């Protein structure tokens, strides 16, 4: 099935300049080296790699929050380098605006686009319902549980109807049960909206359960080690059930092997 390429990351490199204290010249921290991969329309692709390997940096470059040193990011074939509402971002800490209610948070991106209030309100109500928060619209962020906050964060990103959804370990701060609940929710919402998703995680099971493809990054400065196809058809059974499948274990072992083996240092 030849689907369109939604996101294409080409030969992306990034080196941070880290200040080494007073007077000293800044030291260079190469984080990403020559990263290339593509995401097809309607797919969920996970980026996985050990902590500090540059997953967040890569996602922020795609969003346009961090400048790249080299390479290209194309959404629908068009190169992007600044933030835009064609991409929706879901943060690790939900990062809701605490002085706004859940509904007002969802409306944020639409407000920036000067969408009229009644249209915004209606859209926010739809989205809150979609993420299972139909009744909590008027609550402030701190009145919501962590899982509910992430749902609002997802609704906020979906509200602007982005071509691409970028999610940075959105469930990593949640307890195991809530995490599985939200993973299943994400699959349901994704199949309903048909969104293309680039999902950062360091949780193997999560990556396999959610993804059509897993992009495995090596240790810093990271390159793409492998891209693994996850063949389970959708809709998928609950994670607890999928885990029992031999193919699941096989993929898990394979990715685990790749992540844990230290890359031979390439200078």
């Amino acid at each position: 099935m030849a689907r369109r390429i939604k996101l294409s990351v080409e030969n992306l490199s990034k080196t941070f300049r880290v200040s080494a204290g007073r007077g000293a010249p800044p030291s260079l921290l190469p984080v990403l080296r020559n990263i290339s991969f593509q995401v097809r329309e309607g797919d969920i692709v996970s980026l996985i790699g050990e902590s500090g390997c540059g997953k967040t940096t890569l996602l922020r470059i795609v969003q346009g929050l961090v400048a790249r040193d080299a390479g290209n990011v194309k959404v629908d074939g068009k190169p992007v380098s600044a933030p835009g509402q064609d991409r929706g971002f879901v943060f690790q800490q939900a990062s809701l605006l605490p002085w706004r209610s859940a509904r007002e948070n969802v409306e944020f991106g639409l407000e920036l686009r000067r969408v009229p209030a009644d249209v915004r309100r209606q859209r926010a109500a739809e989205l809150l319902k979609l993420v299972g928060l139909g009744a909590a619209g008027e609550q402030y962020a701190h009145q919501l549980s962590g899982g509910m906050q992430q749902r609002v964060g997802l609704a906020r990103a979906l509200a602007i109807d982005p071509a691409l959804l970028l999610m940075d370990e959105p469930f990593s701060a949640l307890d195991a049960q809530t995490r599985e609940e939200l993973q299943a929710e994400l699959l349901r919402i994704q199949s309903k909206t048909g969104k293309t998703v680039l999902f950062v995680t360091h949780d193997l099971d999560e990556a396999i359960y959610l993804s059509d493809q897993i992009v495995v990054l090596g240790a810093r400065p990271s390159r793409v080690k492998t891209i693994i196809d996850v063949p389970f058809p959708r809709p998928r059974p609950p994670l607890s059930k999928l885990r029992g499948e031999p193919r699941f274990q096989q993929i898990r072992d394979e990715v685990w092997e790749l992540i844990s083996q230290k890359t031979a240092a390439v200078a």
Partner: protein
Amino acid sequence: MTARDAALSGADLKESAEIDVEDIATSGPSNRELWCIRVASIIFVLGAWEYFGRQANPLFASYPTAIARSFVTLIENGELIAALITSLKTLVISFVLGTVIGLVLGLLVGRYRRFEASVDWIISALYSTPKVAILPLIVLWLGLGAPTKIFLVTMTVIFPILINTIAGVKNVPAQLIDVGDAFAASERDIFLKIILPSAIPYMIAGIRLSVGKAVIALVVAEFFTAISGLGALITKYGNMYDTATMFVPILTLMLLGVLLQSGAKAAEKRLAAWRFTD
């Protein structure tokens, strides 16, 4: 958010160690019981004041019923109202001026590093200068009338608000600015929809601090320039050795301060409602 609250109460406490009676009364004994204790305490203190005040030489001390009589007299002859209006005029004009200048300047200094570098040294210098000390100079510039008073009180009001607003802008969590950036917000929208609302609790803390200082500055200005307003009443009856009557404007000023404080608090509950939900 807890770190943020802590930072906030830090700012609150930096300049005044006032105890917030309402905030403390949240757990333990019931509100009703606490109010009974409070009323009993008030009655006891007033009673003791009345008793011991009557024993003392009326030149050195007065007592509640005498003050109440003087109060009625001052109301009847119109002196108190006239003085109050004069004082309030200075206070309101200065407060509005000081608040607007403090908030706007604070937002700009907090957000723009270049602007900050060009004015932060003036702010530090003026902040550390006791405003009363330059009063003689201000009198030379502006004369003994209203402008001098307004200048002094405005200068007093500006700084707590300015300093707090700067802190508020600088303490906007980076993640929240990130949200604005990620959603491609313009600089203007980031300012209005993220920085401003995030700094509001700090701003109001600054306004609350400045209320008390404004009343003090007002009285000082009324003592040392063209004698007028409530400050003038204090001087007048002090000079006449009429201690009971002298207490009337003093208590009026105290009431004014309390009223303004609770006004600022009410504004806080409205403007930063999200911080008061649980």
